[in-house]
């Protein structure tokens, strides 16, 4: 995903924040989906609701690979969830100068039934293309990979993506729906933003039902 269109002011405040050790490392997330045939209606509505009116919708085409790191020495650890690291890069030749992105996403926080969104820790690091080799050398194993193609919208600090997930081998879509994600990165304790997200998600109903989905709960095992 490109970040070159990020407003300068946002960039400045980000640098300022990192200077005083305020790091936006919490991801607030809501997820939903929309059927392929209805996606134009959603894009139209988002165009009206979001900030980047003149450029919207910004398109992206990314590749993501997910690596796992297991502690082989510990027998018990095999049965617990492995540490997952995600590598993402743009498939768009125009973005070939952009760095790759390494992302760590933590487990969703427990005991937050009252909170309107899912909250999890999240770290993004820019890196060079050799990250794939590096991770492999470190003993990470490629778990799965996919390509994602879709549209990106911004509303204040919120990021809204409407994207289609493809299997990388045959570029076959995974389902007949677009994945819709509403996310926001904020420092620890900025829980007020979750309320803004809930209000925004409310505006997309009933077109899309954005919910907090605990990945562990829907896992088959």
């Amino acid at each position: 995903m490109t970040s070159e269109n990020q407003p300068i002011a946002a960039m400045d405040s980000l640098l300022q924040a990192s200077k005083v050790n305020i790091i936006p490392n919490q991801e607030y997330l809501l997820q939903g989906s929309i059927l392929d045939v209805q996606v134009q209606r959603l894009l139209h509505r988002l165009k009206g609701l979001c900030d980047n009116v003149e450029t919207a919708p910004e398109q992206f085409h990314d590749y993501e690979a997910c690596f796992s790191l297991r502690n082989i020495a510990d027998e018990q650890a095999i049965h617990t969830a492995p540490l997952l690291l995600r590598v993402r890069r743009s498939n768009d030749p125009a973005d070939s100068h952009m760095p790759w992105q390494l992302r760590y996403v933590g487990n969703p926080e427990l005991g937050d039934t009252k909170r309107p969104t899912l909250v999890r820790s999240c770290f993004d690091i820019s890196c060079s293309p050799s990250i794939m080799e590096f991770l492999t050398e470190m003993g990470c194993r490629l778990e799965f990979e996919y390509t994602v193609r879709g549209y990106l919208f911004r509303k204040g600090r919120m990021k809204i993506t409407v994207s289609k997930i493809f299997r990388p081998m045959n570029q076959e879509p995974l389902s007949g729906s677009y994945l819709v994600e509403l996310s926001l990165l904020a420092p620890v304790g900025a829980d007020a933003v979750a309320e803004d997200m809930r209000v925004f998600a409310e505006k997309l109903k009933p077109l899309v039902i954005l919910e907090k989905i605990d990945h562990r709960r829907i896992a088959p095992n």
Partner: protein
Amino acid sequence: MQREEKQLEMFLDNSLSKLKDLKIAIGQMIQKIEFEHETINWPTFLDNFALISSHLAGLSKMLSLEYTPPIRNLTVLPLNLSPDVDERLVQATEGRLPIFAAEIVPDYLRTKPDPSAENRMNLHEAKANAITNEAASKQVAQFNKIVSHVFDLISKSRDEWEMESLHRNVRTETCNQGDTQTLVKAIALGIGLKTNSPMMMQQPRGVPGQVPVQMGSPGIQPMQLGKMPSSIKTNIKSAQLHPYR
């Protein structure tokens, strides 16, 4: 004699209060129609109507009671007719009747229906009696047939409308919970994306990616894959080996 007079007086008082209630109910109804005719709905209208009819029913019940003095036997006599405005009369009738003159007395003191109305009623009654039982039942059957036909038409249209609205509801479905789960599971845990996971399990853990080949990188040629150690040869045969697996 005195007892009868007392009874009559009591009865008149009762009737007056009942009539007053009736008058108020009718007044309210008229007011509703005058001022709220745009917003009034059928249920409230019928409620008002039921109020009036209950007052009327109460009145007629009282008249039919046994101990009611036979007011039919009493006579009302117009004692004073005058073409001038009578202030007391205006007050007593709340401004509805200013003059008690010869031309309006028959209307106000009438105890039988208007002769023309009575004639028409008699005509209808005669007509109703003239019809034979057979003809009447035939007409009833015919009427029932028409009504059931109309009922069929209406219920058919209703079914059509319901189908249409149902269809519209189906069309407005824009998201699928199952798809959401599939997509979220896929990007979070890779479920549905791992097509060759059993093979991955066989891969020896200690020697990950002996020859890392960067995708699309011009420097390293995939030809080097040929020099793989024998331990993972089976993997190369079974599928196109991923550079990072």
